[in-house]
């Protein structure tokens, strides 16, 4: 094994055998996969050494998930060969993959909400320890061994994201997988959870397991991975074996294939004009415990207020209450001096609130409608798309075309179904749509979640530009770097209350993280 000091390292083309194949857990050669209209994978070559964490990075839609699904037998490749532990395998279904010791944690959780943790874990592997007491004991054993802290008899729907993530990993371990694929496992985790996860991964590695790890967060990748493969437009462009020798920036450039613009820190544009005033906003839940507990804050024109918090502490409820989507919310919401409390969601939108929902598939898009109809969604009471209650298709299409161009949405045109766009491009369309009505207040929940670095920078730029024009922004994000970089002020939310205010100029992700988990103190 040679250590090279340059990022210009090996591209494991067939010409150069990277390591003796006995050392390899997985060896992919010439993998190709086409979807109607898309080439997801094209001549992919990757070697994963045993006992390592191998990261795969690439832009949205580069083909990472597809490749992993091929390795896990969900989808069949159109061409190429897969070797696991030195012998070639034909994977027709996940059960084939499980048999050869491959396990996968998907980008989107693969859990049945209405089943218990136990049921989710033993499903498909009932032959190992049955579905009863023995299985429960085994789950408990694994959970304790890796410190996963899992209660087997809880319903999955009662679990938070972090716990769900751990259930997913436990599922893989339960099956005795030696090769574990994690597709963007950190997207929804807070730093502490990420650290825990990485701790778990290192433990696995120490036991000789191999981990394939996909993430858009390049510094994470650099901190945990032993080797990194970059994929661009469906092909492997490079494998980096010396992770100490590369920077996130260099990786990003490999991913997009060009130089990145540097994100410039900008001067504050905060004015003294209060735009959003929230007083004593409360939201009771069915069981009496408040989801939001007397929250009060203000946002000025030109100000970005960031909300940090572990997922499930009331961020979504806060956003939805301000948007008028929660009928049981109590308290004052005032925009530009006008009381909005009694208004419907539509009226709030008409009167200047833009809304980027955190779950674009559920709240942001009509997946089976063309883009121009998606342009109308949430704006169906306003020109240019709709006039006097009638739809102006021509105008809607034209304005969609404008968004496509201004926001660099990669699509053949406005008549394509939203479903056909990759996640990042869907997100850009939503951002473009919400900006197009010149809102005075933008509520942005995880505006760049799952979006690649290139698109991320573009979305940030759009938000910054609008802020300069006087836009007030309520920003919710799990990406603390994003929060710190964009916000003028950060509030930490914990169990439905604000527990601390931070100045982004002098706060570290670690301090935020401890405040979010209740371990630290607010100011």
């Amino acid at each position: 094994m040679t250590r090279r000091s340059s990022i210009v390292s090996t591209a494991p083309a067939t010409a150069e055998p990277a390591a003796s194949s006995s050392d390899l857990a997985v060896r992919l050669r010439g993998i190709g996969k086409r979807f109607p209209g898309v080439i997801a994978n094209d001549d992919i070559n990757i070697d994963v050494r045993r006992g390592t964490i191998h990261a795969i990075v690439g832009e949205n839609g580069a083909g990472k998930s597809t490749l992993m699904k091929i390795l896990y037998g969900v989808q069949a490749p159109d061409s190429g060969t897969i070797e696991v532990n030195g012998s070639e395998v034909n994977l027709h279904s996940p059960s084939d993959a499980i048999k050869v010791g491959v396990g996968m944690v998907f980008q989107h959780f693969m859990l049945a909400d209405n089943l218990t943790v136990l049921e989710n874990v033993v499903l498909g592997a009932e032959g190992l320890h049955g579905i009863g007491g023995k299985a429960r004991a085994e789950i408990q054993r694994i959970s304790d061994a890796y410190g996963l802290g899992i209660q087997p008899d809880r319903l999955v729907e009662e679990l938070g994201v972090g716990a769900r993530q751990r259930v997913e990993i436990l599922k893989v371990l339960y099956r005795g997988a030696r090769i574990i694929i994690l597709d963007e496992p950190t997207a929804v985790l807070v730093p502490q959870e990420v650290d825990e996860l990485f701790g778990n991964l290192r433990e696995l590695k120490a036991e000789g397991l191999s981990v394939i790890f996909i993430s858009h967060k390049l510094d994470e990748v650099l901190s945990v991975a032993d080797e990194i493969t970059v994929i661009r437009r469906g092909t492997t462009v490079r494998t980096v074996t010396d992770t100490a020798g590369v920077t996130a920036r260099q990786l990003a450039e490999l991913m997009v294939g060009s130089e990145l613009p540097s994100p410039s820190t900008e001067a504050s544009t905060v004015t003294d004009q209060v735009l959003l005033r929230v007083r004593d906003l409360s939201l009771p839940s069915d069981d009496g415990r408040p989801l939001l507990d007397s929250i009060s804050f203000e946002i000025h024109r030109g100000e970005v207020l960031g909300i940090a918090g572990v997922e499930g502490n009331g961020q979504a409820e806060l956003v939805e209450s301000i948007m008028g989507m929660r009928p049981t919310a109590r308290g004052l919401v005032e925009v530009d001096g006008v009381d909005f409390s009694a208004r419907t969601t539509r009226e709030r939108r008409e009167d200047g609130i833009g809304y980027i929902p955190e779950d674009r598939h559920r709240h942001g898009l009509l997946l089976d409608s063309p883009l121009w109809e998606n342009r109308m969604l949430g704006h169906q009471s306003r020109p240019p798309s709709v006039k006097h209650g009638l739809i102006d298709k021509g105008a809607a299409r034209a304005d969609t075309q404008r968004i496509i161009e201004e926001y660099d949405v990669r699509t053949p045109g406005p008549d394509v179904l939203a479903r056909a766009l990759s996640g990042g491009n869907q997100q850009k369309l939503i951002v473009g749509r919400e900006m197009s009505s010149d809102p005075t207040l933008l509520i942005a929940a995880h505006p760049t979640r799952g979006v690649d670095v290139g698109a991320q920078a573009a979305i940030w730029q759009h938000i910054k530009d609008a802020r300069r024009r006087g836009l007030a922004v309520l920003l919710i994000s799990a990406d603390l770097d994003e929060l710190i970089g964009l916000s003028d002020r950060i509030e930490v939310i914990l169990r439905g209350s604000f527990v601390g205010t931070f100045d982004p100029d002098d706060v570290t992700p670690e301090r935020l993280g401890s405040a979010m988990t209740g371990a630290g103190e607010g100011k």
Partner: protein
Amino acid sequence: MGLGLASAALALLAAFAITSLVLLAAGDPVGDVWAQLLKWPEQRNWANIINNACTLYLSALAVAVGFRMNLFNIGVDGQYRVAAFTAAVVAGEAWLPGYLNTAFAIICAMAVGAVWAGIAGVLRASRGVSEVISTIMLNFIATYLVAYLLREAAVKEEGSNQIATKEIPEGSWIPGIPFGDFEIYGFVVIAILCGVAFWFVLNRTRFGFDLRATGQSSTAAIASGINVKRMTLGAMMISGAVAGLVGLPIIFGESHSYGSTFQSGLGFAGIAVALLGRNHPVGIALGALLFAYLDEQSNPLQILVGVSPQIVAITQGVIVLTVVISYELVRRYGLRLEQREVARALNAERTAKAEEVSA
């Protein structure tokens, strides 16, 4: 479009084949049956076909309104029953003269249909009761309710064992449209207008957009500011209002009263037709005509060929199935074609590049 036609043709062919197989297996005269079914209908039969298609069309339209919003209104049957009864009673009482009476009765029918469907809408919107179940229950309740009211309101003709509501005065009948030597329901015009309105409202108005959006994703609809509960109620009531029209061609064009032999089961047939027509007004029209055609042509089967006319019920059901299956098959075939084209384009690109490099 070409593929769409192909799928329809494929479906009809498959239904033809399956029906023939059934007949063969049963030892019935296959040739004679098809000769009767495919015989060119006489003018009189055409008139019947169009008339029956008219009621089917309205019924299917009512179902389709719900479908577009992901609401499954199984209750058209009950809705049209209460509505037709109401229209017959109101028109029979003739509180207003001439066509005013007609118009008033039609409005009453639509209102009653809307309210009846609205019960399911309210239950769904406020209590989360599945409209499938509530409308089924409401169908049964409607049956008993109308039976009771009919006995209360009925006038019995001397010597007849039928009971019916008071006959509508002739001035309030809707005159037929001449069709050769025969007449078709004047209500056909209203049905066509309903189809046009259906298309326009759904595709060209904000309300229609809201409705379709809610149907596609209620969560996205909420986030976009649509009041989903109100839309649910609204869609259900519109569906019910259209359902209220279903029995009216018969009431105003033929029977002029509501009696115990009033045609039933139109609501369920409407579901099949709506599905066949893919919830599109033109498709529904074709589906309604096809179903009415089969019904009409099969009627004499027993008398002329000695085969139970129920054979066409099998054909009709099979058509519904084969249409959707063939649509799916054709769609998959189209996908594969597209995939192959992409591959070819890619290969061409590659060879071009390779040549460039070697050049």
